[in-house]
């Protein structure tokens, strides 16, 4: 598709691929403890999802060499969303993943961009990693999981947003992550289907947090791109959010405008999964409720499969709107204009 693809997955096949970028201490730690990349396995079980490309050649044959060639691709490596909580290990793995992506992918194709992996258990370490490699223009956003111990808008994370802003990075909020006491806001799940869909309500809670904690008042240039969490839920959430804010705004005096205004300005959502109504009339209503497709950016989410909702959606758009969703909005967002 003639597009900027905002969410394509890559992942090392095992920790072995990261060994060149890890110290002897961590190589031993991994080997002796027998640690595997379980986080990805839980999110994308092998029976459900093909393995993400682990090399440039695999990425080329799966995505880059397909006609029509994508204008640009944003790589997401969610290998960093591991279950362990050792902050020192998390920081070392984040650095190794970034170095691996730089040499395995980013150095080999001008069209490639990537999300910067940071520790998701230590703000200090996330800031250090942003300062270490975040200025590299091939990194376009900081990758954060939707599942967290503390919502991302919390003030303890603001130093990371400040560092991201200084490095010219946005925030990429992606499905999955480290489960806390339970992976959903209602408790332990018993099926993968619930885990899979659980990303959508969890992402909603993160949207609330960014606004209610005043993140966009402090960082007016920050944009948050929500990947693989859907978007059909957005309008009703904002109706409720605005209504509640009108009643209890005193609790969050730094929220100066209606919450929906911040969300429309600062959030973008990738188009996979597009879990949408079958009837064209309902699709038109949905687009009207979303105030048009301005907040949507295309993603294939390669190699993951979510059904075939997107073509029906694109059919309901004007030529200009389709162009915006497929690449123009992302080009502005990631400052890819010159390349696109």
């Amino acid at each position, binding site marked *: 598709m003639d597009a900027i693809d905002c969410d394509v997955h890559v992942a090392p096949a095992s920790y072995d691929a990261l060994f060149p970028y890890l110290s002897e201490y961590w190589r031993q730690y991994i080997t002796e403890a027998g640690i595997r990349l379980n986080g990805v396995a839980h999110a994308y079980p092998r029976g*459900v999802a093909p393995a993400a490309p682990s090399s440039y050649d695999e990425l080329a044959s799966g995505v880059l060499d397909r006609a029509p060639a994508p204008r640009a691709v944003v790589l997401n490596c969610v290998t960093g969303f591991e279950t362990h909580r050792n902050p020192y290990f998390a920081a070392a793995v984040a650095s190794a993943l970034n170095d691996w992506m730089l040499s395995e992918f980013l150095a080999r194709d001008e069209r490639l961009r990537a999300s910067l992996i940071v520790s998701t258990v230590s703000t200090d370490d996330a800031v250090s990693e942003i300062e270490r490699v975040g200025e590299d223009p091939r990194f376009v956003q900081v990758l954060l999981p*939707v*599942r967290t111990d*503390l*919502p991302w808008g*919390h003030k303890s994370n603001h130093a990371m947003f400040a560092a991201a802003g200084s490095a010219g990075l946005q925030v990429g909020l992606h499905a999955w992550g480290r489960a*806390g*006491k*339970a*992976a*959903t*806001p*209602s*408790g*332990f*799940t*018993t*099926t*993968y*289907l*619930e885990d*899979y*869909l*659980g990303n*959508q*309500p*969890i*992402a*909603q*809670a*993160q949207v*609330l*947090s960014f606004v*209610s*904690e005043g993140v966009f008042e402090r960082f007016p240039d920050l944009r948050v791109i929500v990947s693989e969490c*859907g978007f*059909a*839920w957005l*309008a*009703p*959430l904002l*109706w*409720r*959010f605005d*209504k*509640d*804010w009108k009643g*209890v705004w005193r*609790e*969050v005096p730094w929220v100066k405008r209606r919450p929906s205004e911040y969300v429309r300005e600062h959030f973008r959502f990738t188009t996979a*999964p597009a*879990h*949408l109504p079958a009837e064209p009339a*309902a699709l038109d209503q949905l687009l*009207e*409720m979303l105030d048009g497709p301005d907040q949507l950016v295309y993603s294939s989410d390669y190699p993951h*499969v*979510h*059904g075939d*909702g997107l073509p029906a959606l694109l059919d309901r758009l004007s030529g200009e709107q389709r162009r915006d969703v497929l690449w123009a909005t992302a080009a502005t967002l990631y400052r890819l204009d010159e390349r696109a």
Partner: protein
Amino acid sequence: MSSWVEKRSAVVAETTRSVELVDCDVHAQATEAMLAGYLSSQARRMLERYGRRTPRVTEWYPRARHAGMRVDAWPGKPGHIWGSDPELTREQLLDEFDVDYAVLEVLSGQDCYDHPDFAAEWNAAVNDWQLDEWLSFDPRFRGTIAVPHEYPDLAVEEIERRAADERFVAVLMPASAADQLGSPKYWPIYEAATAFGRPVAFHTGGYVDHRGAGYPSFYLDYHVGNGIVMQSQLANMVAGGMFDAIPGLRVVLTECGVAWAAALRWSLDAAWELMREDHPRLERKPSEYIDEHVWFTTQPIEEPEHPQHLVYAISQARLESRLLFATDYPHWDFDSPKQALPRALGPELRRAIMCENALALYGLPRERTR
């Protein structure tokens, strides 16, 4: 001069009225002292020595003004708090808005994770108090059966004890519990409710500790988040097969919003198409179970800038016969029967929401005596 018989029938005609307004979520709230009188000496001793051991949600997320209640909701009577005085509720709700039936949801037992003996007594006390102080006070009040939901065998006993009294129109459950609400652990409660012809009303609140995105900082997030929790619960109820297991089960999702239902249906159906072979017990599309088994109360109904968008959301989720009007008296976000529903909904749909759907669900009489 008219006969005595004619006079009497004229009086009867004057004192009946066609039902026009059913309020499906009204909060009566007992103080601990009010419930203590119904407890055994052992349970009262536990309460006096240790207090309620489960933190209230208001301790997690304080409500910055008037404790989250309507400013005028405090009775000027010693020993009373908001929602504890049936006279004030009658004046401010039933009489002011001509409410024909008000379904009470007493939340005092919703977050009871105490010892099973205590939990059973505590919820029984809630029901006794509801009966003595409210249902016997005005025939417009209808009750819901509070149950010690974490101990389903005891919950079933409580349902059996109350079921003969038709003034209890539903069984009350929280919207968040130790396990997901579709868990087979809770099915005996739903089976008992269904056997006695009662829907199960899941009311926003309960267990706070499930947090996919972590704990929010503010009541604002927590409160908007109640709708998010219910989305997750409904997905679990459908995926867990409880509607297949209990075919007559009717559930009322209370105080969690309504407009999100369409997007959840689409995503459930899409995910089911991708994984249906992994869910052999789900014989039909998830949205069909929702059509058949699920009702929603309106308050706090979403308020889009363009009211027509709410009409879209209701029709997309096929909620026309499933929405039940609710005020949530005496909470701060009370939805007035006169103002809450936008005119865009049209007179027929408004009538369905204001009374017809509730009359059908709860089997309430269409005429009532004044």
